[in-house]
């Protein structure tokens, strides 16, 4: 296993880092869409975050590394949690990060009949796909906008329901598949259908660092890492542990974080002011604000938390006027200023 570039050593890209951390705290937010050019560290950040997360307790011997508490009884009948009467044995596994390659077939994504078993033993067995491997982890899709539409639909559907239902080739399997979907893409290579975009919880733009100073810092870190990965990772271990600590604490704290009525009203007013469609924007906004507040160690969501997540939670949900050159982010910023500075 090759060392992974440490999360805490990523220079800049604060929006992306914050969005990823929020998704890690509350996977229910529904994934992150990252827009940006190649070579801006999108996949590095995803891998780094997953590597930093604490190992998860999983049922030993379960191909879906299912959660002994949350998935008990919900996993496939082959899972040890259902076959044995006693409490299943558990093991610690790392948070998975699964890459979905562009050309992946439906077979490989949702799983299929295990041909090996079928041919050699005549047994009908389910061979789990990428969705099974991504359970409780991250599913990363580079260049989501080039992915076949039917696959994106399928992914979003599973991501939203947390369950993968396979009905094909005489198989009838359902297994838990809760993962944080992270998509990346370059808007110049063809845009994403708005209805797909809307299903991502957060959306952030990453850019090439603007200043030479920042670029030099990026290159220096990366070069130091490539020269001696182990030493570099060791040097960042403490900072990474601090981030891990924040996420772990925020996960526990999230449920206790209070959202005052005034903040909810302000969130609703913001969504109305910018004209975002549907309620999903508001719900995500509140959830993201709560996760963000939890990360900050607060017990109550305040306006600053709301502000911090407004752009990533809403910028991809605005109905766009194609003739308007102003991007979504400035429109939200304007609405924020009007709402908050009065």
């Amino acid at each position, binding site marked *: 296993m090759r060392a992974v570039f440490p999360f805490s050593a990523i220079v800049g890209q604060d929006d992306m880092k914050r969005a990823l951390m929020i998704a890690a705290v509350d996977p229910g937010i529904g994934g992150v869409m990252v827009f940006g050019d190649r070579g801006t560290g999108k996949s590095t950040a995803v891998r780094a975050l997953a590597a930093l997360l604490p190992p998860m307790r999983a049922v030993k011997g379960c191909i879906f590394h299912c959660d002994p508490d949350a998935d008990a009884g919900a996993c496939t009948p082959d899972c040890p949690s259902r076959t044995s009467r006693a409490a299943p044995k558990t093991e610690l596994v790392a948070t998975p990060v699964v890459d979905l390659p562009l050309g992946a077939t439906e077979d490989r994504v949702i799983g299929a009949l295990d041909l090996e078993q079928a041919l050699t033993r005549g047994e009908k067995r389910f061979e789990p796909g990428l969705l099974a491997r991504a359970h409780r982890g991250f599913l990363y899709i580079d260049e989501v906008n080039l992915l076949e539409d039917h696959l994106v639909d399928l992914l979003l559907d599973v991501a939203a329901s947390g369950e993968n239902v396979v009905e094909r*080739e005489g198989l009838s399997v359902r297994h838990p598949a809760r993962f944080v979907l992270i998509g990346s893409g370059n808007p110049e290579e063809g845009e994403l259908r708005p209805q797909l975009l809307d299903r991502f919880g957060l959306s952030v733009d990453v850019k090439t660092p603007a200043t030479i100073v920042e670029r030099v810092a990026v290159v220096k870190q990366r070069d130091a890492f490539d020269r001696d990965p182990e030493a570099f990772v060791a040097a960042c271990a403490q900072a990474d542990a601090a981030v891990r600590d924040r996420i772990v604490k925020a996960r526990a704290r999230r449920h206790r974080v209070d959202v005052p009525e005034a903040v909810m009203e302000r969130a609703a007013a913001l969504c109305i002011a910018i004209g975002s469609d549907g309620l999903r924007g508001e719900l995500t906004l509140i959830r993201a604000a709560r996760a963000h507040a939890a990360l900050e160690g607060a017990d109550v969501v305040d306006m600053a938390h709301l502000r911090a997540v407004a752009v990533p939670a809403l910028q991809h949900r605005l109905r766009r006027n194609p003739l308007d050159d102003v991007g979504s982010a400035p429109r939200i910023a304007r609405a924020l200023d009007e709402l908050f500075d009065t």
Partner: protein
Amino acid sequence: MTATRPDPWTDALAAARLLMIDREGLKGAIVRAQPGAARDAWLDALRACAPQDAPLRRAPAHIDDERLLGGLDLAATLAAGRPVASRGLLAESAGGVVLLAMAERCPAATGARIAQAMDGAHPRFVLVALDEGLEAEERAPDILAERVAFHVDLDGVRAHAAPQMGDDDIRLAQVRLAHMPPANEALIESICAAAAAFGVGSTRAVLFTLRAARAAAVAAGRDTVEERDLALAARLVLAPRARVAPAEPEAQAPPPDDDPAQTPEASANAESAADRLVEAVQSALPADFLAQFLEARAERRVEARSRGAGAAARSARRGRPLGARAGTLRTGDRLDLVATLRAAAPWQPLRQRESDVEARVLVRREDFRVRRFVQRLESTTIVVVDASGSAALQRLAEAKGAVETLLADAYVSRARVALIAFRNTSAELLLPPTRSLSRAKRSLAALPGGGATPLATAIDHAAMLAQSERAKGRTPLIVMLTDGRGNVGRDGEAGRAGAESDALAAARVVRAAGFASVFIDTSPRRRPGAEDIAREMGAAYAPLPFVDAGAVADVVRIHAPTRR
């Protein structure tokens, strides 16, 4: 700037050498050349630097995933009666070189798989993509171009004998490289500045330059990176990625003073080093044609960016696989082997029992599964707008608005939009078929208007574009936006009569080819002339005296070929 243009062949050989010194850091090269002596010589040079026992595997561009990444070896599994895994070509090439032949034909999906393997935990292979593309848009997948250090262009380069390093020298250099002290800040800073000057945004490119410079230093037997190493690295890595011409030193804005900690001298040093680096890169670009070259390249980049969508369209022409269905094998149907075996698998124990034939797998007729595809119809709307006469600017602005409105729909309907404007004696393709709204906005920022009306030329142009779109498997729709009063013939001669007969002739070509078309008549009063042309084109005729973007877009939507 006085740097002489370095010999491209010497540079190309240097790329091969550096690649073999730092295989993990530099990852590979794209070699753009037609098959021939120069490319063979380059590959020989690469082989000469490679370790003796290193595998060199050739992968065809249409390699399938099983072979590329490994999987169940079906033939061996059936023969042995137990699962036999096969290693993929990439795994077999560990420690060696993968030659991707005809990389310009490589599907985006295969490129993505290879890229994933390169990013993954066990790459350890060097990728050499042989790109034989002739036209700008025929290129190795961008996703691979991004992930290899060198883009070597051997077109028109003549190989000549040059001293090369043997693999012993390479090993020596590798040892030296391993003990090299880390790069100093000024070095990184000058590379970053040079990359910024050429509009190279990717961090990978900067890192590749740094690695290449270090490899160049050890190749020359030095322990510190000197300016010429840096210059070589910049020529090899940054020059092919350049997207903009650097600003002239005089015109350059003063560098932002955001680093007060740095002493003025150090900063000035780094700055001048960066300038020299920029010169080095420039010297690698054809000196006289720098401007055009960069323009063409910028064009190409844009092309490349939109190509992603194009690649998807290519696969779409074959249709997305809709799974397999039971069927007999008629001509033209493709057997889905894996699905067939899956269908046969559950019956094996039963069939083995009742059959007296000795066979590992008994496949019967009812097991046959045939592939099915869904054809996705993609369409291209070609908007042809009359930019002549007094109302030109208004018409252009509305046409532009219509194009953008149509593009805003495009991601729902998978449609492309192109815009041709015509005035004086020519028709110009202002926006090549695209699905990208941001690109349309860029190209349509400024449109000139006024002058005579070369209607026939415009129709010819539209028909040509429609033809080429059809050849790519898309359904074209031509939308004319004019008052139909041509006054310049095909030959560029002014004269109403000649112009009108030419326009009618051009219109007939459109009808004969069977292109769907819409004729939006923008003249204030209906005239027979415009209707005649519309009729000869076989176009739907829509008089729209007060052009506005929304109405144009509506007309197009009504007449657009049914999608899906």
